């Protein structure tokens, strides 16, 4: 299981800003190692953020997203104390789900 994500969710007015830092190597599959062999691709492909069971963002990523991906987005309709759940799935079908409370 990968390292946990760091998620911060803050409510300002009626809008919640969510900032996520995921721990993932995000290997694009185009780099070569010292011996010249291609390093296999290993990157997050799907991200799904939800609030109260409703999806508030979906993303499809490639190896072009930087290592230890950062993601920030905003949505309306949440209250302080609610939970935001973020889930990612990578190309090796490994997955990670973390949640944060809206402050």
């Amino acid at each position, binding site marked *: 299981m990968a390292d946990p994500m760091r998620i911060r969710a803050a409510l300002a007015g009626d809008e919640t800003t969510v900032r996520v830092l995921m721990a993932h190597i995000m290997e694009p599959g185009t780099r070569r190692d010292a011996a010249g062999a291609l390093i296999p691709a290993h990157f997050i492909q799907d991200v799904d953020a939800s609030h109260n069971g409703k999806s508030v*963002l979906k993303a*499809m990523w*490639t190896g*072009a997203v*930087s*290592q230890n991906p*950062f993601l*920030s987005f905003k949505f309306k309709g949440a209250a302080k104390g609610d939970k935001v759940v973020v889930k990612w799935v990578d190309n090796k079908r490994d997955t990670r789900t973390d949640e944060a409370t809206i402050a």
Partner: protein
Amino acid sequence: MKSTRRSALKATGAFATLVSLGLVTQSQAQAAVDRASFSVKTLDDALKAIGGTPANSDQVTVVSPDIAENGAVVPVGVTSKLPNTTEIYIIIEKNPTPLAAAFMIPAGTAADVQTRVKMGQSTNVVAVVKADGKLFSATKETKVTLGGCGG
């Protein structure tokens, strides 16, 4: 053979029921862009995969540095003031696979996303958004001093 046909029909029927119940909207039922599109090699192919040539719009903004010291970690943000923005795409024109990321924005979520991408060389960052089914774009050139694709 029998069991797979039966289960395939069951799945289709169940899905159709969900769509008819409005639990899964028609637009969500069709993926914004399929995964194979992400391996296209040119900006034009990426635009084709997304659905056509977007119209340039000043309601779409790309926020990226003028000069990025580290091409492996370039912060890129896209905002769209267009109503009913449902999809945002980030394309790095001269990357080996230009279509870098796609975001699906449901109602209630702002058309305002930020992430960090790898840029192989100085090039245009093109943001394409789909609003009300139509495509719009904005472009910003970002110079890269140290390429980020391992080259």
